């Protein structure tokens, strides 16, 4: 049966040699190389559940009266968008499962990208020839953030509506052209023209997914062409790839990961509630709720907006930077610019323009790891600042005090983390210490015929220098 299938395909496409090559493709299979796949498979679940949702959701702000199952909203005039989302949740069989799985998939998608990005950064996988692919990946992250925000803002509920107001204010804060850009996107003063929701809908279900999908294809191609990176050891060199072949080992495990991801997301979608829009109520510009938060991946922005001092510089009557600019645009702008520029920065400062296929362990490049850890600390702190109100409620630390603590911490702590991390990495690297293994010992034969252990293993520092990639010791 397999023979006739192969015959069928090869007679028509002549692709037997290519498929053979693909099936023998070697995958270095360190477990951290699977993070990107978790993101990819989450994206597939997003598309699958998303198609279901598009067949029910009505992207319109026209008014209707809700007459579904949820009592507190019965007889209330709401938008068609909100009404269709409620009906999906209560009246469509398996509708809530699909809605919640879709939402959980978005949260996990971006978390997986973040973890994947950290792996890429800390192992130096972004170096030539993979810098282009790194830019593609970063761009997908930015698009994923926008896509997620757009998705949950479609439902016209109170929580996401408040978020849209803040997005409008952040757009307005772009110097000079902010008002024009905001009016182009919203079609009018907030809450916008009647077709705003349908515009957002098309961006969310068509424009952005197509771009992301295309970039995914490029991303995968750019991995396959130079082949995957690998860690040293086990016979790995800069000129080969050592790993599990695509078929059968890798394909089975990888598809297994796909099913595990989908399974985890559907389990969450059924068992743990997410985005209960009926509890928030619909959005009105004159309503609000305490404790309003964006989805997790936007949490860093609310933190930055909250701890920013009330500066709004103006000159000759022109307000150069409305306050939301700092938290909503400058902070993410600086972070992403830094991330985009990092391969260039490292190339310059470490004077390393070589092609690299072998990865660093984080300890092999203390400087890079320390900077990455400092950046991670900074981002985590502004995330925490965004939850200062809950910290107040749960732990009693006064809100205003927290604001001041965070303002100091976001500068002080990354600096401390940088110094600490660098030191730790240098220590680990120099002693090649592994918490679960004995340090390697060199045994030499003495001239008189016995053996002696001289206690000094081949030093990893020297090994790293020999293996290619001269990172300057700092």
């Amino acid at each position: 049966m397999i023979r006739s299938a192969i015959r069928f395909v090869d007679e028509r496409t002549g692709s037997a040699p290519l498929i053979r090559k693909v099936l023998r493709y070697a995958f270095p299979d360190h477990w951290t190389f699977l993070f990107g796949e978790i993101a990819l498979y989450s994206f597939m679940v997003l598309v699958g559940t998303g198609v279901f949702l598009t067949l029910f959701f009505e992207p319109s702000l026209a008014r209707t009266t809700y007459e579904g199952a949820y009592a507190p909203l019965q007889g209330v005039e709401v938008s068609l968008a909100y009404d269709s989302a409620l009906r999906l949740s209560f009246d469509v069989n398996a509708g809530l499962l699909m809605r919640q799985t879709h939402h959980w998939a978005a949260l996990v998608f971006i978390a997986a990208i973040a973890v994947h990005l950290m792996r890429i950064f800390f192992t130096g996988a972004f170096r030539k020839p993979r810098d282009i692919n790194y830019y593609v990946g970063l761009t997908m992250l930015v698009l994923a953030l926008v896509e997620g925000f757009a998705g949950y803002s479609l439902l016209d509920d109170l929580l996401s509506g408040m978020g849209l107001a803040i997005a409008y204010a952040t757009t307005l804060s772009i110097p000079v052209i902010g008002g024009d850009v905001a009016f182009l996107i919203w079609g009018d003063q907030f809450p916008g023209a009647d077709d705003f929701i349908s515009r957002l809908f098309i961006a969310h279900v068509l424009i952005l997914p197509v771009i992301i999908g295309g970039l995914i294809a490029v991303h995968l191609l750019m991995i396959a062409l130079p082949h995957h990176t690998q860690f040293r050891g086990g016979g790995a060199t800069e000129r080969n790839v050592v790993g599990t072949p695509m078929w059968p080992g890798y394909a089975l495990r990888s598809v297994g990961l796909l099913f595990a991801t989908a399974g985890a997301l559907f389990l969450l979608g059924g068992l743990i509630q997410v985005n209960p829009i009926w509890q928030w109520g619909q959005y009105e510009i004159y309503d609000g709720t305490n404790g309003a938060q964006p989805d997790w991946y936007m949490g860093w922005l609310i933190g930055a907006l909250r701890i920013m001092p009330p500066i709004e510089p103006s000159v000759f009557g022109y307000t150069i930077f409305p306050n939301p600019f700092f938290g909503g645009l400058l902070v993410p702008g600086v972070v992403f610019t830094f991330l985009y520029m990092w391969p260039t920065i490292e190339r310059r400062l470490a004077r390393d323009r070589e092609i690299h296929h072998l990865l660093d362990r984080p300890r092999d490049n203390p400087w890079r790891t320390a900077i990455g850890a400092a950046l991670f600390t900074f981002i985590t702190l502004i995330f925490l600042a965004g939850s200062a109100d809950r910290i107040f409620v749960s732990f009693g630390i006064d809100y205003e005090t927290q604001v001041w603590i965070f303002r100091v911490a976001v500068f002080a702590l990354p600096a401390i983390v940088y110094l600490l991390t660098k030191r730790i990495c240098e220590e680990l690297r120099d002693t090649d210490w592994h918490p679960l293994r004995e340090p390697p010992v060199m045994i030499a034969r003495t001239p008189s015929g016995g053996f002696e252990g001289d206690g000094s293993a081949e030093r990893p520092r020297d090994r790293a220098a020999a293996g290619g990639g001269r990172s300057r010791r700092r």
Partner: protein
Amino acid sequence: MRVPERIVLALLLAATAAAATFAVAYALEWSTQVLGLALGGALVAIAAALILAGKRVAPGEEVTEQRPKLADPAEERQLELDIERAGEGVSRRGVLLGGAAAAGTALGGALVFPVASLGPKPGDRIGSSPWRRGTRVVGESGGRIAPDDVKVGTFVTGFPDGADQRELGSPVVLVRLRPDDLELPSDRSDWDAEGVVAFSKICTHAGCTINLYRYPLFPAQSPGPALVCPCHYSTFDPATGGNRIFGPAGRALPQLPLALDDEGLLVAAGEFSGPIGPSWWGVRKRDS
């Protein structure tokens, strides 16, 4: 059958059962929890089967491949020659390329213009509101508001009579302060109506609704009256005309002057003290 194979088979059978349960649960309209558990369970069981098969059932092997050669100088040189062949015999290459560049840039630029159809030029609309001198203040259901409806310690949401309640400049928040507590700036000394003052309900920081009001029962031991925004906790003082006393907002809360009409009911005595909503490039150009 070897043990790992048996486990894989068991997992696949479990997945079959779970998938069937999902179908049944769907048909009988059981809860979202059952649906999720069944479908998720089936997927997880298959995942376990596949992973176990990949690790323990199928032959495990490690292969070593040579990496494809990147950066082949000979090929690159050939490619360069291939491309440049197009220019053989062309007399004014530079001029033609320049013309192509001009055409391409102009077309690219021109194609951007239809983007402008997406929205109107903002003009004055960004910070505008429907409130005018004489506009009656009404509640959400349209009933007029009297000063006595706004007692000390409460806050009321008001709207302009006859205007769209969903326009950003429409909602106002009304509070009453005791005469001793009121310290409006001198050019707004008559902006209250019997102690009732009105402010835009839209925060000047990022456009959220200001629907928190802090009013002390015992002023000596509590923070004073304040209008607070739940998004980033910008806090405004109604007594001094909406000045910011905490938080990131860059501008005071715009105040709406109030007066009483012939029936003793609340009307606006003019427009807001400044543009409503979040700041933009030109926000301070319109401050009156």
